[in-house]
């Protein structure tokens, strides 16, 4: 072989039997070969083989398997972001003429995707409040309703939906259920009988704010067309991102627990605080629908939403005063983050919608990180004092 060819067809490194890397390699290869054309079309190749990284990649496949196991679902398909996961499920299940039910209180990009983009494809959307049960029941009962999408805890106002009831109503009406479970992590709500669970892996799964990813999880039946759609849409994660998420998952449980504990501590502190007009945290007895949270929920999440009785300018001042909370979207990472709710998540809402969803000038969202909670409380206290 000429040296020119050799640098392209470098000799494979063969590991001897029983000698394996502890950490799986990152499979950067875009293409995978088969020993023969016949082999490439065999049943085993179709089921277990790898061909092209947009369809399936070994590093990403490892991530899909561990997420499916965590959420106790048969199949997981990874996507390049949480939004790509939602988009994939919507496109795979909807056709022109269908109706989608979603909540006013949901994550702004999800709301925008459904309101602005789906209508262009001839899909009707019904936006209702998560607390308006009669409206939910009415919309679900409509003949053209095909799918309902909801969040385990809504972002950013942390409303608790009536999970069991929504699923029951949807099932009764043969409506496909899509649960965005990002806020309660990859180990909660395993027993909910929803057709799809999606996650933004960018959040708790990665946990270090350095990779984006999403995941669709479901049964063999419900996931049938999902990989095809994901492949066609091309929103597949890069193997490097899959690796970083797999690496992050190793400390997932410890991070999630610590972040929940710290968030609960801060929420309790806010409850008795004279500068805080209102605090929303799913673990507090005072939270609306607190009793409706499934009893086996492990940890109430790392998000706290609260309200300072002030105008927007004053709120921004409070946010700027904080030293340990960075002003940024995202959540579930080692660093604590703060977001002014109206500015970040309320731009597409009119006055009535803002009132219904409870968003005020002084509404603010914390994503609690891994810092010492005492340091976070001291930081919050000094930032509040500067407002006086």
């Amino acid at each position, binding site marked *: 072989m000429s040296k020119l060819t050799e640098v392209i067809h470098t000799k494979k490194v063969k590991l001897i039997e029983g000698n394996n890397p502890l950490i799986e390699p990152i499979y950067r290869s875009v293409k995978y070969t088969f020993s023969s054309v016949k082999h490439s079309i065999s049943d085993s190749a179709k089921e277990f083989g790898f061909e092209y990284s947009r369809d399936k990649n070994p590093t990403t496949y490892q991530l899909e398997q561990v997420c499916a196991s965590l959420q106790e679902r048969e199949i997981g398909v990874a996507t390049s972001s949480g939004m790509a996961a939602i988009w994939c499920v919507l496109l795979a299940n909807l056709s022109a003429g269908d109706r989608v039910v979603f909540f006013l209180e949901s994550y702004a990009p999800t709301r925008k995707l459904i309101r602005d983009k789906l209508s262009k494809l001839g899909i009707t959307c019904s936006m209702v409040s998560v607390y308006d049960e009669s409206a939910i029941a009415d919309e679900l009962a409509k003949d053209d309703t095909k799918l309902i999408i909801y969040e385990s805890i809504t972002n950013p106002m942390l409303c608790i939906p009536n999970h069991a009831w929504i699923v029951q109503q949807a099932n009764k009406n043969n409506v496909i259920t899509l649960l965005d479970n990002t806020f309660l992590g990859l180990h909660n709500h395993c027993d909910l009988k929803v057709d799809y669970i999606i996650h933004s892996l960018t959040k708790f799964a990665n946990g270090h704010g350095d990779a984006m990813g999403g995941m669709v999880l479901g049964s063999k039946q419900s996931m049938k067309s999902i990989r095809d759609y994901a492949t066609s849409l091309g929103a597949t994660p890069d193997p490097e991102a899959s690796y970083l998420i797999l690496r992050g998952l190793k400390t997932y449980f410890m991070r999630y627990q610590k972040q929940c504990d710290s968030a609960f501590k801060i929420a309790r502190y806010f409850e008795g605080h004279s500068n805080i007009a209102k605090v929303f945290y799913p673990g507090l007895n005072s939270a609306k629908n607190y009793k409706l949270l499934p009893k086996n929920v492990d940890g109430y999440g790392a998000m706290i939403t609260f309200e300072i009785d002030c105008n927007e300018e004053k709120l921004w001042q409070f946010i700027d005063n904080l030293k340990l909370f960075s002003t*940024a979207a995202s959540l579930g990472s080692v660093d604590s983050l703060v977001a002014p709710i109206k500015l970040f998540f309320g731009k597409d809402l009119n006055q009535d919608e803002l009132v219904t969803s409870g968003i005020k000038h002084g509404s603010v969202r914390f994503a609690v990180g891994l810092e010492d909670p005492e340091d976070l409380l001291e930081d919050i206290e000094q930032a509040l004092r500067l407002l006086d």
Partner: protein
Amino acid sequence: MRFSTKQVHAGQEPEPITGSLNTPIFQTTSFVQDSVDQYMNKGFSYSRSSNPTVEVLEKKLSILEGGNGATCFATGMAATQAVFNSLLKQGDHAIVSQVVYGGTYRIAKEIFEKFGVTFSFVDTSNISLIEKHIQDNTRLIFTESPANPTLKVSDIALISELCSKNDIYHIVDSTFMTPYLMQPIDLGADIVIHSTTKFFDGHNATTGGAAICKDNTLDQKVKFIRNTSGSIMSPFNAYLTLQGVKTLSLRLDRQCANAEVLADYLENHKYIERVGYPGLKSFSGHNLLKSQARGFGSMLWFEVRGGLEEGKQFADNTEICTLAENLGSVETLITHPAVMTHAYIPRELRLEMGVTDSLIRLSVGIEDIDDLLDDIGTTLKNIYE
């Protein structure tokens, strides 16, 4: 700021151009200068000398250890090499813990002795013994504590005092403790050495080392050696290590708790002859370490009943505990020091150190403790029953 806050924030600022919260990976060899006259006024010229990503990790490590400068290296051994090189010259003498990582022993015996440096390998848990070995030309004492793999504990404060009285440097390899559990500089040491491959990374993803100095003059000496010897940490490894450090205390809390349960379990197990874990009251360095550290670490050793054969059988047959030469990571790892990490040390000396043929070293990870207990219990049962 408390430790867990510092491990997330210390040394790191959002990147000024884009606001990127995470430190970017500056994967560049060269840094463009504005003009000849303004050479180096942004602080960087060539990545062998310094690199912004690596520098952020160095700042963080320095703050966590309470030092005045840190230098990162390609591996822990490169850090040890650089510290030796910056402080020792021909004709000098150094005292090194008798129980010490095999690589440290090897670099002293096979490289530095060739250039006319002499070493005494001394039981550093015995202060009067150290005193006896101090000579006019003794330049440094290198203490590894708790030592690898016997976990022998040395008195960092007392040795530091002895060093300053005799005007010699005290170097501490604190890899087994990390600054979360112990801060040698606070106890009087001059330089702390780490293999960042271990607890700092914690995910078995990189190799790296660091030397953190008490004062800036020493730090400059170490940096000079790194620049000339070239054993630098890559920006990518620095980035991964930086991310790993952010969960350090979380991982260690769990690892220490798991190790404590396992040590208790093994101490009372009928097929186990001896167990060494500094957290056990029966362990000889227990009280000393308790007074100088916040916790007892995640390393333990034991001897199974029988000898070499049973030891090997145990190491080969566990399922969750993996046979691999590393420590401090999230996975529980087993090593057989006599055959693996300490094979370079002559058998007689090795036995004198307490590293017997049947000694098994366990680096306890963050798995569910019940899974670890099941794994070890089942393996022992299968060997003996």
